[in-house]
């Protein structure tokens, strides 16, 4: 039954210790979001050990600040916002804070006519997946995060703009740049 609850309702249940299902609600919520959030952090920082630490910090923050969560707002947006702040702090510690402010709009020609074909077989599919991940790791951090949020948690561009605190149009541009770069990377395999 809890599996059918929305994220926000699960958080409300978790926040209420009188509810006998409060711990179970958290487990359902955690199972639902642990993969996307873990991969978002891992792809942002490109380091497994740091990713593990940040992932733990993220969930500890979610647990400790559960009372501050507004059930009228989207849990996914809230969780990604916290994750992104933790990442910014980590980048500052590593002396890489500049990467977050880089507005990388290097002249990648947006050619909407270039289309990605479905992989013909499983071997090609695996090859394409490996190439895609490699290309994602070379994206500027803002574009990378925008792409990962969109494909990990099916977030709308507006939700991503809310997380990053950017204008919608800017987020849209970042996403299109990211997609075009990835398309180019995959073209070689087609």
């Amino acid at each position, binding site marked *: 039954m809890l599996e059918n609850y929305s994220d926000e309702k699960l958080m409300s249940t*978790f926040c209420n*210790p009188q509810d006998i299902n*409060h*711990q179970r609600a*958290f*487990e359902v919520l*955690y199972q639902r979001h*642990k*993969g996307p959030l*873990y*991969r978002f952090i*891992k792809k942002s920082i490109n380091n497994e050990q740091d990713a*593990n630490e940040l*992932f*733990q910090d993220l*969930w*500890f923050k979610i*647990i*400790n600040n*559960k009372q501050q969560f507004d059930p009228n707002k989207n849990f996914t947006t809230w969780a990604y916002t916290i994750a992104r702040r933790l990442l910014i702090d980590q980048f500052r510690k590593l002396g890489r804070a500049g990467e977050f402010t880089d507005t990388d709009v290097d002249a990648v020609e947006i050619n*909407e006519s270039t*289309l*990605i*074909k*479905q*992989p013909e077989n499983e071997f090609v*599919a*695996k090859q*394409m*997946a*490996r190439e*895609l*991940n490699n290309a*994602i790791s070379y994206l500027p951090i803002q574009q990378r995060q925008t792409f990962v949020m969109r*494909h*990990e948690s099916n977030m709308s561009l507006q939700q991503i703009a809310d997380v990053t605190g950017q204008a919608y149009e800017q987020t849209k541009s970042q996403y299109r740049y990211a*997609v075009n770069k*990835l*398309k180019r990377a*995959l073209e070689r395999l087609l």
Partner: protein
Amino acid sequence: MNPNDDDKVLNEIYRSGNKDQPPEQLDQIILQHAQHSHATKSKLRSWRPWLAAASIVLVMPIIWLLVQNEKLLDQAAPNAQLTQPQKPKPAKELSKQEFHSEPEPVLEEALMAPAESNQPAAPAADMAVEADDLQNMEEQGKIAVTGSRFKREDPASLETESVKANRELLMNELKVKKKTLKQSNLDPILAMELQRFEMYLEKGKINEATQLLQEMQEREPDFDYSELEQRLADAGSD
């Protein structure tokens, strides 16, 4: 194909190659933390009544002690007022009071001082006022001219009588405070001296007895020697 189709294909490729999950150990830590966060609060909640009871148990004795202290202070305050030496009143006020009321008991210090020093140093103007007051009061029939009133006209004699009366009162008070010469109260030396005193009286050695009594009074002034003085006086008269 449109861009949305591109998104779909990219999404499929992305998802097929991205299935990383956090380590199971991390899952356990996070789930335990979630459980513990409630447990900590529940524990605190369950301790609340006990903490409240404990605070009452601690606070009540403190309040009781404060109340007791206040009571003691209240009790001590009147006593302090009683023992506080009275300020000497102005000459005019004193003289007026003497007309209206009985003479007040004179203080110990005042009694011990020579009679002259107790005399109010009334200026001439005040004396004139006093005379006027007296005249007015006599006219109004508020006081009667009695022997004591006439005596008052001679300040020296009045003071002497007053001082005597008060000295007696004070001596009585002091007597009450002094220890009686009982065997149980005496130290061995004083007991021996008392025996010597008895012996001198029996043998009629009045001078030695008088000297010994003086020595005893000087050394042990806390005792009441009035009985011995009386006996010495009796022996002397015999």
